[in-house]
């Protein structure tokens, strides 16, 4: 006898696999998949992220969110190719190689195109090695890792002829980031947080189609779709502030369903309607010029921050003078 007759799908009366209190909705496996895919389409349209005529490059990490995003875009019939960046993170877990294997397997099963960048092959060093060598990342490679990922993703999008770059940031990512910025009154960062960042010369448009799904919802989607994703966390994520904030915010969500979504949407709405006034960008627009090495726009006088990571000869000198960041 099955025990699970208590919670039913609100559409068909089958056993529900998930209840979403913030939406007052319980759904079975099939209706959940349908709902999730339709919602994604709604968000893409609502924020004018991209159209069916545009090619979308999806940043895939081998994790549940990014593979779910690629899967949904594929189901919706968008022209979506994947980009995987092998960061060379091993730490005894083969984290990068295993996630690359899963990303490749996912693409193969669906006949999708996956572009792969390997940091070690490109630069002769892995991300943790680069981080250890530079001041930006002596303790944790995350700052260096983020810089490399952002740069390589943008570069790949431009070189491969995509003007849209999609990342799988979910509501929990967005809310944790916003919470951290409010908590530290980091107003600068709050200006640019949005479901979509329009393209500008040298920069692809950045979109986050999952920004309104909680991480529980994206995880549930991957599970019911049977997507094989990397379950291990990046070993460097342990003890991160972001995890702490997510945990705190979920404790709050438990007693106040919908709190995360209201916090996020309330912020976007208040800022975009002008009710919340953040300090304006410098009056004089920052002078952007192409980096002499990689060509990406930068504000720094010489090489961009990314290329400076690989300036070994001048490293000693520059490290003592130049503030990182």
């Amino acid at each position, binding site marked *: 006898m099955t025990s*699970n007759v208590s*919670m039913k799908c609100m559409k068909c009366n089958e056993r529900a696999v998930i209840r979403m209190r913030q939406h007052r909705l319980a759904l079975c496996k099939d209706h959940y998949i349908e709902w999730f895919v339709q919602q994604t389409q709604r968000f893409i349209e609502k924020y004018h992220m991209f159209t069916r005529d545009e090619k979308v490059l999806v940043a895939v990490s081998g994790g*549940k969110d990014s593979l779910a995003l690629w899967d949904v875009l594929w189901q919706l019939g968008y022209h979506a190719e994947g980009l995987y960046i092998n960061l060379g993170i091993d730490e005894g877990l083969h984290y990068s190689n295993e996630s690359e294997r899963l990303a490749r397997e996912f693409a193969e099963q669906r006949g999708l195109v996956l572009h792969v960048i390997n940091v070690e092959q490109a630069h002769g060093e892995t991300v943790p090695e680069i981080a250890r060598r530079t001041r930006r990342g002596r303790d944790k490679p995350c700052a260096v890792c983020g810089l490399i990922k952002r740069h390589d993703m943008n570069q790949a999008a431009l070189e491969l002829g995509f003007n849209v770059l999609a990342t799988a940031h979910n509501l929990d990512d967005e809310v944790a980031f916003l919470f951290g910025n409010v908590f530290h009154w980091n107003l600068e960062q709050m200006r640019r947080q949005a479901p979509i960042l329009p393209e500008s010369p040298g920069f692809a448009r950045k979109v986050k189609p999952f920004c309104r799904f909680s991480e*529980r919802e994206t995880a*549930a989607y991957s599970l019911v779709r049977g997507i094989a994703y990397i379950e291990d966390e990046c070993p460097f*994520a342990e003890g991160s502030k972001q995890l702490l904030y997510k945990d705190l915010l*979920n404790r709050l969500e438990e007693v106040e369903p919908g709190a995360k979504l209201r916090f996020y949407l309330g912020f976007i709405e208040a800022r975009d309607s002008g009710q919340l006034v953040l300090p304006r960008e410098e009056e004089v627009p920052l002078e952007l010029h192409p980096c002499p090495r990689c060509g990406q726009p930068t504000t720094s006088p010489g090489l961009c921050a990314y290329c400076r990571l690989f300036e070994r000869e001048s490293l000693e000198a520059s490290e003592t003078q130049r503030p990182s960041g």
Partner: protein
Amino acid sequence: MSVVLILRKQEFKIEGTITVKEALKRLNLSPESHLVVRNGELLNENDVLRDGDVVKIVPSISGGGR
């Protein structure tokens, strides 16, 4: 016999019949941050776990730099 719950590499045991929601509560795990899977099937919070069940707890949140 008992209900066995596996979270990453850790095993927890709970005696008797219990709902998913109760089980997470006993382990002090937020239902917002964890999903429970039995034989590959995602369970809702009211689903009942019984003696002999072996279920997997899947953490839904992950961290790291953005």
